């Protein structure tokens, strides 16, 4: 292995030139990256690679830390620039041919040559896989973040009146989403000092035992904090499903639609909605007043 790094180091300039040439024919995207930048990256990588290969042949070792970090940076910056992960991997893989050429010139013994080429190829393959790995990892992070953002967006807690909150749920409820719903509702209850919360499930397409259990949990948690929780927007089909599944909602105050639930909430906080006739123009307007 000592000889391998020796050969690479001695032929660094040749390999670099060969590499750039190789890239020009395989993975060159001159529309995304200039020649100078590419040359700089290639030279830097080759420097770190040769340095690390001096003492180790294991790409997971401490010596290769610099190389690995550099590759991760490249993977990230190239992804931002619009490279596909395969193109980034080709950037590393195209180093193979010039290295093999250099080894070919250095070794006359066939069996030694095969062994060295095998080892070098293996190492470069693994480094290329690392770039793919980091590209996938970056994508995963983006997806996770967007999922979290979507969760936040899809569970708004709105204030209907002093002390009355509404939580219009839209879309399918799963465990992780219920967790967010529960947390945001409970913290909103504390923040706004509300005594009534209405959960509206008009936008929930299906209610199965699991969803019902999640809802009951949320309602129980709100009750523990001292807020009453009503369930509204139960469509006839869902009412049938609930009964067929044998879900017990006797402890939960339910209403067919949000308006009814809001009316109940208002009467609970001691308000009522009355229709008044203004003297000036006879127009109808609704206002609330203390009961």
């Amino acid at each position, binding site marked *: 292995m000592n000889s391998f790094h020796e050969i690479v180091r001695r032929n660094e300039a040749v390999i670099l030139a060969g590499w750039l040439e190789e890239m020009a024919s395989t993975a060159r995207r001159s529309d995304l990256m200039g020649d100078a930048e590419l040359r700089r990256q290639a030279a830097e990588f080759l420097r770190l690679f040769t340095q690390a290969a001096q003492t180790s042949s294991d790409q997971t070792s401490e010596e290769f830390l610099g190389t690995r970090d550099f590759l991760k940076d490249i993977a990230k910056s190239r992804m931002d620039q619009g490279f596909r992960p395969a193109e980034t991997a080709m950037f590393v893989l195209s180093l193979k041919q010039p290295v093999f050429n250099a080894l070919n010139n250095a070794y006359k013994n066939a069996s030694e040559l095969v062994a060295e080429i095998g080892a070098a190829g293996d190492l470069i393959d693994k480094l290329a896989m690392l770039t793919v790995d980091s590209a996938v990892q970056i994508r995963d992070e983006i997806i996770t973040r967007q999922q979290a953002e979507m969760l936040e967006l899809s569970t708004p807690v709105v204030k209907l009146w002093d002390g009355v909150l509404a939580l219009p749920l839209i879309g399918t409820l799963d465990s992780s989403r219920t967790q967010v719903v529960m947390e945001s509702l409970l913290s909103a209850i504390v923040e706004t000092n509300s005594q009534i919360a209405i959960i509206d499930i008009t936008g929930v397409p299906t209610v199965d035992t699991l969803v019902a259990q999640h809802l009951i949990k949320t309602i129980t948690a709100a009750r*523990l904090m001292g807020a009453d929780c009503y369930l509204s927007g139960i469509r006839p089909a869902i009412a049938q499903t609930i009964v067929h599944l044998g879900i017990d909602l006797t402890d939960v105050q339910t209403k067919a639609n949000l308006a009814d639930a809001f009316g109940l909430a208002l009467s609970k906080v001691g308000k009522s909605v009355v229709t008044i006739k203004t003297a000036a123009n006879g127009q109808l307007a609704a206002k609330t007043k203390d009961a």
Partner: protein
Amino acid sequence: MDRIPILKMGDCLLVTIQVDMHDQLAVSLQEDLTAQIARFRSRGVLIDISSLEIVDSFIGRMLANIAAMSRVLDAETVLTGMQPAVAITLVELGMSLSGIKTALNVERGMELLRQYIREDMDNVQVGDGTEE
């Protein structure tokens, strides 16, 4: 050994839990509270747990027990100021504390207790009136 102070406010007893409850503390609170209810013939107990951040099933059960014992001694229990995290934990533990009344804060809790006591007194007076 430290104990949780129990304050008397008219007909009611006020307990604010300011420290993390450990099991022994909960047991001694249970003993003290029942003794005080009997001594002052209190009608209501208000337990404020707004500074309680950690609960386990034992503490949850202890709270339920306190409420049940108070009811036996004819005092209503109101639990106030539960933190969201605590509420979630209790629900996940499967403890809905269905026997306990709850309120958002001490103010609302006191209101609830007064209302309960008032209604209770009215009932008693009506009862007396019809008997005579």
